[in-house]
């Protein structure tokens, strides 16, 4: 197990993140990888070809072994990302056999036929990224 040798931290400042469905409390400024290591959740991803479990190797952004899914976005490097309160961190399982789940909430009929209408729907899924994109398309940028 990894263990922490840091100085005493004020528990009031701790942030809560979810790692593979387990809620853990970590010091602000911690990297996602360190949070995972301390929680004993060291498996970062399943390799796409041979479907082997992998874990961080370099911890400094070079090897891309620590790619995890953070708040629904895949391929985030855990070692370069700092924890944020409420963050959802999941082991990344995108292998060559993975089939995408249909985002049924995007498929509700009937749908308006104009672009902005649909993209508002997309925003409603809660992704801030989607919101950015919507904004962009609306403004025609």
């Amino acid at each position, binding site marked *: 197990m990894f263990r922490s040798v840091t100085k005493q931290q004020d528990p009031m400042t701790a942030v809560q993140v979810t790692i593979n469905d387990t809620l853990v409390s970590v010091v602000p400024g911690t990297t996602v990888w360190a949070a995972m290591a301390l929680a004993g959740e060291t498996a970062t991803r399943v390799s796409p070809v041979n479907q082997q479990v992998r874990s961080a190797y370099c911890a400094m952004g070079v090897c891309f072994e620590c790619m995890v899914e953070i708040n629904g976005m895949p391929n985030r490097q855990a070692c370069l990302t700092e924890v944020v309160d409420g963050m959802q961190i999941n082991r990344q399982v*995108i292998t060559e056999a993975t*089939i*995408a789940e249909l985002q049924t909430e995007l498929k509700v009929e009937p*749908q308006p036929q104009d672009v902005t209408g*649909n993209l508002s729907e*997309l925003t409603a899924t809660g992704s801030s990224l989607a919101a950015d*994109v919507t904004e962009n398309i609306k403004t025609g940028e």
Partner: protein
Amino acid sequence: MSVNTTSQKLSSDVLVIGGGIQGASTAYHLAQRGVSVTVLEKDTVSRHASGVNAGGVRLLGRNIAEVELSKAAMQRWQQLDDELDADTGFRRRSLINIAADENDLDSLRSREQQMHSLGYFHEVMLDKRELLERLPHVADHCVGGVVSEQDGYAIPFHSTQAFRIAAERLGACFCEGELVEQIRKVGDSWLVDTKTQQYQAEHLVNCAGAWGDLISVMIGDNVPMSYSAPMLMITARMPHFAGPVVGAVSRPLSFKQFENGTVLIGGGAKGFADRANNTTRLDYSLMANGARNAIEFFPIMKTACINRMWSGLEAYMPDNLPVLGKSMRAEKAYHAFAFSAHGFQLGPVIGEVMADLITQGETRFDLEPLRVNRYERKTL
């Protein structure tokens, strides 16, 4: 640069200039007929467009002038791996062009009318329900599309190498690192000089891609060819969401998801070509357009991560059709270049056409619209 000196053949029946898919296919078809052939490649085989293109094997939406060639090529792709005893990576996946609105559907309907009147029935229109069945992840605003069932993709580098290896097996010789500096016709022979060697042959084939105009001029034919750097990007692996290859009727959108899960996004945006230095530069703001279109048509793409971006040097004619056929100024010289970003699929049949022209003096295809001097009168 690896110069293939061991098997260099200085004199042959046919000299092919350019080691892309057209040159390699031409060599393969000639060697199959017992013709001795040497291919001169200035860099390495499949170094440029033939190795780095999007790999689309597309019959859908072809210009009428190319439909017959493209149909014949498509027949060949379906069993090309067996024929060449290699893995070109060809997968028949169908290709769907998506209609985003009624205007798109209108253009599809008039195209359908034209194709049917010419006796072509390989493009089939899809309504919204049929589109969703084939592409469940498509955005809801899309109203329909058109599909060509035989279409798909292949791995360009592997395909070009497959022709090369098959050709070599039959005795063809590929000389890499041989930049053509001069071409002369002396008596019945073509003499071609590179920096270190002189090659001699009875027939000469120009398959020089983005450098095709330079070789063409050395042969004696002028063409208003331009070159550019179409850009591509590929994602890290994603969960499988699109079986068919995807395009759009009126938007610059084109992508395919490979078996390994990566998604190759094209769409025709062009970067900056630096032909003299063998290199290209990307225009990132144009890449952004492609990104926006992809997300708009497939919301799942908002989680896509771009892993690599690149572009290759490609030759274009003003009408976006290749130069294909005999030289107009010289005997026993032939052109197959300037495929204007859709030559890859034609590869298997182009070699056949060249071999027919050389060994029989004619081909079953109508090459009139593709002749090298088709712009001559217009420039007068």
